[in-house]
């Protein structure tokens, strides 16, 4: 057992929020906690160190210092007591997730930042992860697994502690490459079918229902304590649930767990209700306050919006992507860019009726000042497919004017020649 935990519960009393403070016996981990080497817990820290090394060399690591500093400041605002020891990595991955490993390394996914409507929503999810960290939930889960003999099972199939750590980071990622990566990292699936194996991992690393509820509650208190809207907490879980329910695929709609944070943080309706009850007496933001917060947050993520949306389309789940784009459009900004990606989502799915939906989206996109040059190119291709050669020629020529150095210039020029030849 960890004996070096110290009570930080007093600090919560100073927050003076409408939300109830954590019970006085809710003990938070001490700063810079590191079990003595050789102790049973040390293995978990060592595994986290290995997972961190793995994450630091990942191609998914975001290198934008502005974004990194923004997330760091937000986390330090939420958890000043751990600010010095938390090492934050922003990962470009199109799923909603964040993790805080026992050794203090934190992964924040672009998919979370893209789905947060406001800083309050982002702050709540980060507060939730920090609460798992502060309450040593990973350690508790690890110890529970040991009692259940799951570690023995893991060792029997040849998984080292290091591989467990790497797989934990992959399994937690909800990444669509996870099956391959787990296969690659572990080489442990030899005796098990992939599906049973991955399911086993999710079970192995999922937090208990009690720990989830506690992280919800403490995360909400933490975020509200430094001024964030407590209604953001139920709101982001609700909207992520709604996005999953908008999926193309019945299997995904039925299983909220698939490829989201809920793989390891199981979401239930009662968690959302509990967060609403806890926000209870706190007044909702006014429309103006809400709008101002949305716009301020959009300004932060705007430089990354195009890349994150393109990554999102790689999930090839039009229902979910369109739901997400609609949510982003509700802020009333970036409408040209968002309409372009709406068109891209339809173009890539390419079912009956999708061509005309894509065409409508590209036509709308170019009416906005922020339309990317590619919107004219795709409008041109869509007009050409719809048999509107003059409109296609106009759009493709506009693309070449707006993107003079584009890599595909030669190809578009040759397409224009063909179009003009067949039209004249």
């Amino acid at each position: 057992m960890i004996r070096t935990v110290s009570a930080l519960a007093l600090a919560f009393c100073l927050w003076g929020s409408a939300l109830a403070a954590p019970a006085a016996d809710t003990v938070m981990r001490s700063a810079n906690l590191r079990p003595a080497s050789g102790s049973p817990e040390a293995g978990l820290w060592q595994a986290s160190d290995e997972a961190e090394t793995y994450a630091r060399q990942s191609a998914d690591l975001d290198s934008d210092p502005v974004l990194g500093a923004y997330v760091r400041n937000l986390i330090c605002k939420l958890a000043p007591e751990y600010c010095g020891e938390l090492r934050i990595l922003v990962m470009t991955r199109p799923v909603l997730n964040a993790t805080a490993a026992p050794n203090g390394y934190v992964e924040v996914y672009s998919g979370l930042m893209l789905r947060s409507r406001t800083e309050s929503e982002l702050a709540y999810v980060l507060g939730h992860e920090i609460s798992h960290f502060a309450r040593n939930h990973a350690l508790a889960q690890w110890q529970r697994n040991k009692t259940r003999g799951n570690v023995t099972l893991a060792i029997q199939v040849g998984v080292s502690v290091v591989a467990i750590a790497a797989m934990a980071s992959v399994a937690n990622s909800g990444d669509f490459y996870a099956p391959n990566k787990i296969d690659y990292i572990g080489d442990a699936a030899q005796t098990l079918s992939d599906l049973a194996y991955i399911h086993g991992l999710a079970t192995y690393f999922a937090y208990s229902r009690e720990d989830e509820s506690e992280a919800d509650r403490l995360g909400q208190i933490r975020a509200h304590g430094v001024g964030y809207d407590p209604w953001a907490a139920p709101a982001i879980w609700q909207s992520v649930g709604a996005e999953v329910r908008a999926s193309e695929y019945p299997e995904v709609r039925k299983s909220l767990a698939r490829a989201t944070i809920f793989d390891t943080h199981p979401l239930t309706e009662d968690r959302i209700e509990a967060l609403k009850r806890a926000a209870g007496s706190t007044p909702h933001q006014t429309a103006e306050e809400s709008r101002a917060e949305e716009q301020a947050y959009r300004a932060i993520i705007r430089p990354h919006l195009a890349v994150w949306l393109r990554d999102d389309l790689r999930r090839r789940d039009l229902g979910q992507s369109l739901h997400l784009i609609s949510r982003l459009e509700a802020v009333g900004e970036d409408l040209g860019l968002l309409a372009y990606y709406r068109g891209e989502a339809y173009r890539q799915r390419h079912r009956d009726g999708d061509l005309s939906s894509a065409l409508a989206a590209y036509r709308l996109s170019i009416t906005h000042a922020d339309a990317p040059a590619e919107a004219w190119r795709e409008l041109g291709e869509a007009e050409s497919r719809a048999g509107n050669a003059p409109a296609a020629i106009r759009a493709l020529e506009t693309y070449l004017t707006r993107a003079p150095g584009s890599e595909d210039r030669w190809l578009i020029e040759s397409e224009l020649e063909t179009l003009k030849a067949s039209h004249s």
Partner: protein
Amino acid sequence: MRKLFTILALSLILTGCASSGLIPAGKISLGEGHGMMTQGSWSDVTYAERRYTRAVQVLSRDGPLLNQIILVRGLDAGKGLLRPADRTQPVPIFRADQTGREQVELVVETLSELGYRQVRFAQLRPASFGPDKAIRFDLTARTEDGLNLSGIAQAARVKGELYLVIFIAPSEHYFPTLKAEVEAMMNSAH
């Protein structure tokens, strides 16, 4: 599973049950009526990725992590280079009405689906595939654990079927070493 499959495939090759793993220099088939000349010998490493569909053959000189050429030998419309893992995870698909740029996009999306990160194309340029038109382009990407990769690829659509030659290797040493040889192979493709 993959390791098991690899071992299985390797043992088949070693015992001579499967088609030969070694491809000597000379003419290799790119599907019915199509081919390409190779200068050196290559190994068939298609088995290293179990999701490849029938039209795909993968060659390597020093192992798939060090250099590989993905050949697509007449892909039918409606098919992809990869088989979907399940119904909820569709893969990039070749369509008969795809523009040249969409063929390039198919290569980028398929490499992304294979787990390569930040796959980008550059320098689209005209090329030929026998009497037919082709598009050649450069590629850059990174492996999941951050290794920089470079590549060249060529796409051609002939009678509604897609023919691809995709070369990818670590930017350091391996790509420059084989670049000219692979370009000569592409030039000979018909």
